[in-house]
């Protein structure tokens, strides 16, 4: 089996889908000839032609707008937004148009659009190259929201997202593109080469949306997380000696509620981790769900470890980015009660 990083896995998914389905097209700023600033779409234009993979004017509202139009008229567009921080000029098109088209037309119209976008911090990108805006979209009925944490999942989930007839916002944590990251920025860069999830088939496969994965089984406490935080939380579990069960949610909408419920009912303790700011973050929704469904099984209040309620900083990045230490502290807090 081939060894891939997330960039290559995304690229492989697109190549497979371009081959299988002539209605699949890909476009975005610098995403045609150059293959995207992170090179996720490289080789597509060369192989399939510039009508299948093309550059666009620098206008996210326009990019999402044409994706909707193409999608409602027989194509299956995969639009790239260069950084999740730059998705906001397209926000109206996504939340008011893309998300509501099916409902608004009584089911007559829909647009099977996938919007791929690199998200998250850990790359010294400051507040405009580090944000995690998933909660804006999970709060919008009509959108599915997916976030990958490794190459194998990236490919399988992206293929399912493209095949999905509902619009999908597909987040790619850019800190993970080239290797897993456990939050220790002083350690040497690790690559996907030797990671089991870096083994990715060249052929088509998919991973169903709406299914979480238990990435580390444990008995003492459940950690709910996604994206880069999957690796930080897993490392915190390993290094603290606490027998935590780490769940990679993978799809935020629709949520794998059974996986969450089963785990928390088993451990009786829950820690929620995300990079995005705390107030109205997706953690607030997770916390409500756990409280509503597992209240009588909880041994202690649920804990949240999140980014602070500040814009994402540049030089003080590591004081913002949720650390193993903070996750460990939160796990301990649930166990003291």
């Amino acid at each position, binding site marked *: 089996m081939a060894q891939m990083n997330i960039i290559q896995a995304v690229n492989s998914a697109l190549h497979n889908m371009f081959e*299988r*389905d*002539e*209605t699949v097209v890909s476009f975005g*700023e*610098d995403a*045609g*000839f*150059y293959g995207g*600033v992170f090179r996720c779409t490289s080789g597509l234009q060369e192989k399939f*032609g*510039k*009508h299948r993979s*093309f*550059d*666009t*004017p*620098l*206008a996210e*509202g*326009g990019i999402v707008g044409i994706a909707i139009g193409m999608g409602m008229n*027989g194509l299956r567009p995969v639009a790239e937004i260069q950084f999740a*921080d*730059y998705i*906001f*000029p397209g926000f109206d098109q996504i939340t008011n148009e893309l998300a509501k088209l099916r409902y608004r037309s009584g089911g007559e119209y829909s647009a099977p659009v996938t919007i791929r976008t690199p998200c998250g911090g850990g790359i*010294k*990108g*400051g*507040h*405009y*190259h580090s944000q995690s805006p998933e909660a804006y979209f999970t709060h919008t009925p009509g959108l599915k929201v997916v976030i990958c944490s490794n190459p194998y999942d990236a490919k399988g989930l992206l293929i*399912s997202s493209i*095949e*999905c007839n509902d619009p999908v916002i597909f987040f790619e944590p850019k800190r993970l593109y080239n290797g897993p990251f456990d939050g220790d920025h002083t350690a040497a860069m690790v690559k996907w080469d030797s990671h089991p999830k870096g083994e990715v088939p060249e052929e088509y496969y*998919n991973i*169903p*949306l709406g299914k979480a994965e238990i990435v580390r089984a444990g008995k003492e406490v459940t950690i709910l997380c996604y994206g880069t935080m999957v690796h930080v939380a897993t490392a915190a579990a390993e290094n603290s000696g606490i027998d935590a069960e780490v769940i990679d949610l993978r799809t935020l909408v629709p949520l794998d509620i059974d996986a969450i419920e089963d785990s928390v009912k088993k451990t009786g303790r829950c820690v929620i981790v995300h990079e995005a700011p*705390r*107030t109205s973050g997706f953690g607030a929704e997770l916390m409500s769900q756990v409280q509503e469904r597992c209240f009588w099984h909880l041994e202690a209040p649920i804990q949240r470890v999140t980014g*602070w*309620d*500040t*814009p994402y*900083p*540049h*030089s*003080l990045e590591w*004081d*913002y980015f949720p650390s193993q230490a903070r996750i460990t502290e939160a796990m301990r807090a649930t166990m003291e009660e």
Partner: protein
Amino acid sequence: MSDFGLVKIMGEDSEVNMHVPVPPHREGGTSFPSPHEIPAGHHTKPSIDCAGEETRDLAYGLLRVLNDDDEAVGEWDPKLSADELRAALEHMVRIRAYDDRMMMMQRQGRLSFYMKCLGEEAVSVGAAMAMENRDIVVPSYRQQGLLFVRGRSMVDMISHCITNSNDNVKGRQMPVHYSWKEGNFVSISSPVGTQFPQAVGAAMAFAYRGEDSIACTWLGEGTSAQGDFHYGLNFASVYQAPCVLVVVNNQWAISTHRNLAHGGSSFAARGIPYNVASIRVDGQDLLAVYAAHKWATERARAGHGPTLLEMYTYRGDSHSSSDDPSIYRPGDGYENWPLGDPVDRLKAHLVKIGEWDDARHEALQAQCKDEIIAAYKEAETHGTLKDGPFPPVTTLFEDVYEDEPWHLLEQRGQVGI
């Protein structure tokens, strides 16, 4: 989850009719078909109270003052003194030396990121010299020249770029996202285009208060595809806001050629249907840049409304420290740009009029380099990117709001400060 299997929608001989433009050089031509055949001195100068639509020729033409013999010619010659010309040259040489040094430091890992303005030095120097310091400037990330002309300390600029304890934006932004209130230089935002209508609003505030200051703002030709560009033009036109709106057409937006930014030939021409006075300017010609800004600034100050300027120039180097232009524009090097280089051209003009020579030029370059090395050293006494000291952790929670609400105080407590 359905497995679609193979989907074919097109027959063997069906043709794709969707048009996707390609940069000329990628099909064996050149990226440089330009309006540069228009000779210097060709355009007449309308009065500053003309209707926007009367500037049509200027919007589709090219305003040039320096001719091929390095002389200043025509009605638009701003007749700058030799001292003013030398000051402009000095600013441009200093900016170039600064950019080179900073990019070199980035390559050594002493900056996290950097962006040069090679080839575009005249665009900001000519603009800043034509304005008053009280005029508010709302730049994009490639107008560092404004700071030099307005006299910002290089130590402070470098401190920002290495995010040390002397960084006035407290290490919150990536390098080159300067902010300098004292110089009426508005904090640069990375999301492109957003600040175009903001500059119009700032201009409206001057008009509201009855002041005769103006606002000037810049965005790239790539960015002109954003709605914000059109919002800015339309609002400026509707309210006759005292502002100068500039599109810097440096031909490229990262890897994307300008023919993907619009389907027309001139960016300046976008202003005409909004009835905004519009001029396309040779951005390598400091005198033309200065003259156009002077005209537009006087027009705005006198209450005759906004002007759109297209600076026709070339991005001489990579987009930033993160990309390699040889991949997407091989053979399309800056040395081939038909309108030349702004430093070379102004220098040649000064030599021609007997006010400059090679020896003085070399001495200036050496002096600028020394100044920057010294400034860099001094900046590092306030901390380095690698070892700090950085702005203190308390700054993480400051300036989110004017005062910190309870939840931020609580979170600050969790960090232990």
